[in-house]
């Protein structure tokens, strides 16, 4: 966690995921090459490299973008989210190979500077169907470069989670640019119904899932708790599973109420690392464990166990009969609050 800087924090799960990513990428390239050569044996090596790595990057980007909403809608997908950053960097490498080879093949063999040629070889910027699609891909590649180069926790720690998250939301802009890049490239060059079909289905799936997840989140945000003498009625104690939490909106903040060892504690739902939903995690070894990347906090005081230093706000609870109430006023981050026995 926040103790010191390490180049990459490896563990056996990350290594397994990375092996799967690497093997998957190699398998895709080999299969793509084999199928292409079977159906079009005259394809040049350069074209094969450009198309295989380009399509690989697009497929990987779809997987990356679909992991987020799937995890919001069903927590069985959370283990994939855990390694999404490595998938993102791998996708950037595939996109870089595609972009680099394309720039060389189409723009570096003439008299012009290849970057100048990229922007000026097709000047139909006023046409929609003939718009220079390579420019869109280049701009998307720049965004992916910024994201890949700032993906490490070193930048997360120095930029703050809020700035880092907003910076990395630029992937949505990159996706929009790549939709234009692939569709226009397809329309202007040789039209492949398979590519258009894949992109259309991908667009519907990704935007659909993100919008469904976003509206589900809005529903939770807009649910108002019943107030009694300054306390908000949360739920019945039986509604909370052992070592798990229920999430409620208190004012503009989300709060997770955890039940463990016959006790109840409430903390702010947002993990200090990347804003993960702590209430969707569970209690492991006595600590609330973030479902996104495994950051941990003690339920009684919202502090990461020593020697780590992260801390989140805590809330006061009370139990009347079997009904749980919460004081909406948050304590300072890391404040010790006596758990309620239940």
């Amino acid at each position, binding site marked *: 966690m926040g103790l010191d800087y390490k180049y990459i924090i490896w563990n056996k799960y990350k290594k397994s995921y990375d092996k799967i990513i690497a093997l998957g990428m190699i398998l895709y390239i080999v299969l793509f090459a084999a199928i292409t050569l079977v159906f079009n044996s005259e394809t040049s090596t350069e074209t094969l490299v450009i198309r295989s790595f380009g399509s690989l990057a697009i497929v990987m980007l779809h997987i990356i973008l679909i992991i987020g909403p799937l995890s919001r809608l069903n927590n069985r997908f959370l283990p994939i989210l855990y390694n999404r950053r490595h998938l993102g960097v791998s996708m950037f490498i595939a996109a870089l190979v595609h972009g680099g080879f394309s720039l060389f093949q189409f723009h570096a063999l003439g008299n012009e500077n290849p970057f100048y040629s990229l922007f000026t070889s097709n000047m139909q910027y006023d*046409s*929609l*169907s003939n718009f220079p699609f390579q420019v869109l891909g280049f701009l998307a590649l720049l965004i992916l470069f910024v994201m890949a180069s700032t993906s490490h926790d070193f930048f997360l720690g120095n930029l703050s989670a*809020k700035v880092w*998250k*907003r910076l990395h*939301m630029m992937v*949505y802009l990159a*996706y*929009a640019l790549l*939709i*234009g890049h692939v*569709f*226009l490239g397809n*329309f202007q060059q040789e039209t492949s119904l398979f590519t258009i079909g894949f992109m*259309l289905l991908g*667009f519907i799936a990704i*935007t659909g899932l*993100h*919008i469904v997840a*976003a*509206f589900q*989140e*809005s529903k939770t*945000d807009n649910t108002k708790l019943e107030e009694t003498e300054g306390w908000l009625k949360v739920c019945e104690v039986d509604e909370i599973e052992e070592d798990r939490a229920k999430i409620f909106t208190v004012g*503009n*903040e*989300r709060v997770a109420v955890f039940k463990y060892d016959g006790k109840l504690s409430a903390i702010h739902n*947002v993990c200090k690392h990347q*804003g993960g*939903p702590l209430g969707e995690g569970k209690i492991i070894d006595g600590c609330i464990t973030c479902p996104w990347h495994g950051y941990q906090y003690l339920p009684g005081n919202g502090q990461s166990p020593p020697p780590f230093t992260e801390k989140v706000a805590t809330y006061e609870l009370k139990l009347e009969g079997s009904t749980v109430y919460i004081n909406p006023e948050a304590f300072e981050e890391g404040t010790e609050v006596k758990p309620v026995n239940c």
Partner: protein
Amino acid sequence: MTLGLRKAHKFSWVLIAIAGIVFLFFTIQQLNFQPQESSKTNENEQIKISMSNHQVEVIVKSSLKTSSSVVYAVNSNGERGEALGQVGAVGIYTFNTSNPIQGIVIVDQIKDVELTKLNF
């Protein structure tokens, strides 16, 4: 995520969905689904030319051995029209033209000599 980030996510994806649908609608509307006109071709010992959909392809079969070989369109009056571009070594050259053309003429621009002329 914080409330602000959740709202930013929601806004981004609603925007992408709307923009994507509008983009696809107008792009497909601009596409030409008419059957492509059949290409016209001609060739001599030095070059082969073909034209389809306002695109002229010039295949230089043997080197023209001049320092400046400019390709001009031959207009409907059979005269030298717009300059399309330059050709050089053996290879395939493609030029766009917005007007209907009858053929091409390749000119040594320095000596102002017609090197070869072909009509479709």
